[in-house]
C-alpha cells in the first residue's frame, strides 16, 4: 500500500481531535493531553508522507469514489509535504506554549476551553489548504482556517480584540468573496475546478480571459498573504490577539496565502505574463513594510510589519519563475514560518517577564533573564539575515536568482532586498538596544516589574521550553540547509515542470500544454 493514501488523515486527525477536545470541554487536563497527542500523531504521519514523496514522487488520492476531474483530489508533492511538516512542527510548539501559559495563568488571559478544539480545527484547515488539488476545496480549506482564526482572534471578547476582530473578519470575508467569484468565473470558462484539469483547460482560453482570472485569483490570495497594497489589515489586527495565537497566525496564515499564490503561478497560470507587476508589488511590500516597522514602539506591531515586509521576499522569488528563484522562495517560506513564530513566542515571554511589550517601557532584560535574551537574539539575527543563519541563506539564494535573471527590474529588487534586510537589522537592533541592553532606569516609562528585585514574573518552564525548541528547530534549518535547499530546488523543478502533478491526478495519458513565454519580463 502506498503511504500517500494516508494523506487524508492529516486533515481528519485534527478534526477528530477537535471533536474529542470539544467533548472533554469540562476536563481541561484531558483536553490538553488529547490535543498534544493528536498533533504529535499528525506530525509523525506528515514526516512519513514527506519521506514517501521524497522517494516516490508526486502522488494523489481520490476522495469519495469520484474520479478526477469530477471528484475532490488530494495531491501530495514535495512542496505541500514540506509545508505540512514545517507548519505542524510550528503548531505543535505553539500548542505546548499555549498550554504552559494556560496552566501558569490559571486560564485568566488565554481562557476558555474553546481554545483547544478551535486550534485543532485551524490546523486541519491549514493542512487541507496545503493538500488539496481542487480549487473549491482550497476555498473550503481557507474558510475552515479563517473561521477558526476569527474565534481565536477574539478569544476572551475584550474591547481591543473585538475591535481588531471586526477589521480582520470583514477583510477576510471580502477576500473570500473575491476568491469565490474567481472560482465561479473559472468554472464558467472551463467547466472544471480540479486544478490539474484546469492547468490543461485554462491554457486553451484566450489571453484576455486568462489574465482576468489570473489577476482575480492573485488579488484574493494577495489579501490573505498580506502583499503590500492589500496588507493594511495585518498590523492592525494581529498584535491584539493572545501571544500564542498571534504567533501561529503570523507563522501560518499568511504563508497559506503565499502557498496558494505559488500554486496559481506555477500550476494554473505558468509563464511570465504577470511577472513584472508581481516584482513591483514585491519591492513595495518589502520596503513599505519595513519602513512601517521602524516607526513602531510596540514589539508585536513591529514584528507584524516585518512579517508583511518579508512576504515581499517570497513574492520576489515567485515572480522570477525560475528554478533557482522559486526554490529559494520555498526555502524562505519554511525559514520564515519558523523564525517569525519563534519571535512572537519570545515576545509573549518578554511581555510576561517585563510586564509590557512596548520598547518605551522595557529595559535591562539581558541582565534580568539572559536565557530570554538568547532566545530573542538567535531568531532576531536569523530574521535580519545575518550569516550563517538560514535567513541569510534564503536571501542569498533569492539575490543570486535575481542577478542570474539580470533584468533591470530584478537588479532593483536585489538592491531593495539588501536594503530591506539592513533595515530589518536596524528595527531589530532598536528592540535589542532598548528592551535588553539599556538599564531599566533609562526607559521612558519603566515598568515597575523591571525594578523589583527577586523572581517576579518567573517564566513557566513549558513556555520557555517550547520556545527554545522552536528556536533550535530554526537553527536546525540552518545546519541542514544543504539538504533542505536541495529539496526546495527539487520541489521548484517539479512545480515548474507540472507533468508529475498533472499525470498523478489525471493519469499518464493527459497532455501537458507547453508553457508560453511571452518575454514580458525580459
Amino acid at each position, binding site marked *: 500500500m502506498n503511504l500517500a493514501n494516508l494523506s487524508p488523515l492529516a486533515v481528519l486527525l485534527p478534526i477528530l481531535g477537535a471533536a474529542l477536545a470539544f467533548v472533554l470541554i469540562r476536563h481541561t487536563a484531558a483536553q490538553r493531553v488529547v490535543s498534544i497527542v493528536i498533533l504529535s500523531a499528525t506530525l509523525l504521519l506528515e514526516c512519513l508522507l514527506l519521506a514517501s514523496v521524497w522517494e516516490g514522487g508526486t502522488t494523489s488520492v481520490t476522495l469519495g469514489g469520484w474520479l478526477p476531474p469530477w471528484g475532490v483530489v488530494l495531491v501530495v508533492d514535495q512542496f505541500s509535504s514540506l509545508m505540512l511538516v514545517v507548519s505542524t512542527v510550528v503548531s505543535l510548539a505553539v500548542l505546548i506554549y499555549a498550554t504552559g501559559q494556560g496552566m501558569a495563568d490559571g486560564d485568566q488571559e488565554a481562557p476558555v476551553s474553546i481554545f483547544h478544539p478551535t486550534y485543532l480545527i485551524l490546523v486541519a484547515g491549514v493542512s487541507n489548504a496545503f493538500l488539496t488539488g481542487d480549487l473549491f476545496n482550497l476555498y473550503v480549506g481557507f474558510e475552515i482556517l479563517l473561521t477558526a482564526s476569527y474565534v481565536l482572534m477574539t478569544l476572551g471578547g475584550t474591547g481591543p480584540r*473585538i475591535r481588531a476582530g471586526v477589521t480582520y473578519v470583514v477583510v477576510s470575508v471580502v477576500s*473570500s468573496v473575491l476568491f469565490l467569484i474567481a472560482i465561479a468565473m473559472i468554472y464558467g470558462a472551463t467547466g472544471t475546478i480540479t486544478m490539474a484539469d484546469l492547468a490543461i483547460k485554462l491554457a486553451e482560453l484566450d489571453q484576455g480571459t486568462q489574465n482576468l482570472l489570473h489577476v482575480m485569483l492573485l488579488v484574493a490570495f494577495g489579501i490573505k498573504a498580506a502583499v503590500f497594497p492589500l496588507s493594511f489589515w495585518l498590523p492592525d489586527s494581529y498584535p491584539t490577539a493572545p501571544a500564542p495565537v498571534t504567533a501561529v497566525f503570523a507563522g501560518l496564515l499568511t504563508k497559506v496565502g503565499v502557498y496558494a499564490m505559488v500554486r496559481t503561478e506555477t500550476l494554473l497560470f505558468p509563464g511570465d505574463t504577470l511577472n513584472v507587476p508581481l516584482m513591483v508589488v514585491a519591492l513595495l511590500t518589502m520596503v513599505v513594510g519595513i519602513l512601517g516597522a521602524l516607526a513602531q514602539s510596540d514589539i508585536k506591531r513591529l514584528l507584524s510589519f516585518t512579517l508583511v515586509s518579508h512576504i515581499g521576499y517570497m513574492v520576489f522569488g515567485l515572480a522570477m519563475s525560475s528554478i533557482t528563484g522559486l526554490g529559494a522562495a520555498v526555502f524562505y517560506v519554511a525559514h520564515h514560518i519558523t523564525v517569525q513564530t519563534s519571535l512572537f513566542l519570545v515576545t509573549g515571554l518578554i511581555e510576561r517577564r517585563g510586564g509590557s511589550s512596548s520598547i518605551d517601557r522595557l529595559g535591562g532584560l539581558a541582565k534580568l533573564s539572559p536565557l530570554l535574551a538568547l532566545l530573542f537574539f538567535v531568531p532576531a539575527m536569523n530574521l535580519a539575515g545575518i550569516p550563517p543563519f538560514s535567513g541569510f541563506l534564503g536571501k542569498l539564494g533569492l539575490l543570486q536568482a535575481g542577478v542570474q535573471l539580470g533584468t533591470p527590474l530584478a537588479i532593483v529588487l536585489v538592491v531593495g532586498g539588501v536594503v530591506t534586510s539592513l533595515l530589518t537589522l536596524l528595527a531589530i537592533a532598536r528592540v535589542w538596544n532598548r528592551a535588553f541592553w539599556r538599564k531599566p532606569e533609562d526607559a521612558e516609562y519603566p515598568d515597575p516589574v523591571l525594578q523589583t528585585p527577586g523572581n517576579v514574573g518567573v517564566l513557566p518552564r513549558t513556555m520557555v521550553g517550547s520556545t527554545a525548541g522552536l528556536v533550535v528547530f530554526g537553527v536546525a534549518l540552518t545546519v541542514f540547509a544543504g539538504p533542505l535547499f536541495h529539496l526546495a530546488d527539487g520541489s521548484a523543478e517539479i512545480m515548474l515542470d507540472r507533468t508529475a502533478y498533472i499525470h498523478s491526478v489525471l493519469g499518464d495519458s493527459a497532455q501537458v500544454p507547453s508553457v508560453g513565454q511571452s518575454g514580458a519580463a525580459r
Partner: protein
Amino acid sequence: MSINLTLLIVMGVLYACGIYLILERSLTRVLLGLMLLANATNLLILSTGGYAGLAPLFDKETASTQYNDPLPQALILTSIVISFAVTAFMLGIIYRTWALARQDEIQDDLEDRRVARTPSFDAEDDAIVPLETSEFVVTASTPEERLHPEATETPKTASSREGGSA
C-alpha cells in the same frame, strides 16, 4: 450557453448594494453588505452552470443534455453554509461591541493613531548626540586639531585672555 437576464440584473443590484453597504461605518450595515455580496456570488455560481434543465436525478430515459449541471448547486450549498457561519459570528461580534462600547460603529486603532502622531524627532535617539565616541582619552580629538595644534590653540588663548581681563 444562454444567460437569464433577470438573474443577471438581480445579481448586479445585489453586488452594488453590498459594496455600498460594506463601505459604511455601522457594523450592522457592513454585515448586511457582506450577506448581499455572498448571495450575489451564489447567483453568479448558479449562472455559470449554463442552461436550465431537469433536476440532476439519474434516469435512463433522459438524455444527458437535458439535465442541469449539479456541480454549481453543490458549490452554492457549501458557500451558503459558510456564509451562515460567518454571519452568525459577525452578529456575535456586533452584539459584543454594543455591550462593550454602546455603539454600532467601527472603532479606531488607538496605537495606530498614536504612532501616526509621533514626531520624527525622537527624544532619546536625537536629543543628546555624544561628541566623544571613543572610550580612550585622546588629547587631540579631531583630525584637524591633530594636524594643526597651533590653529586650535589661538581661540583658546584668546578666550582665556578675555576671561582674564573680565
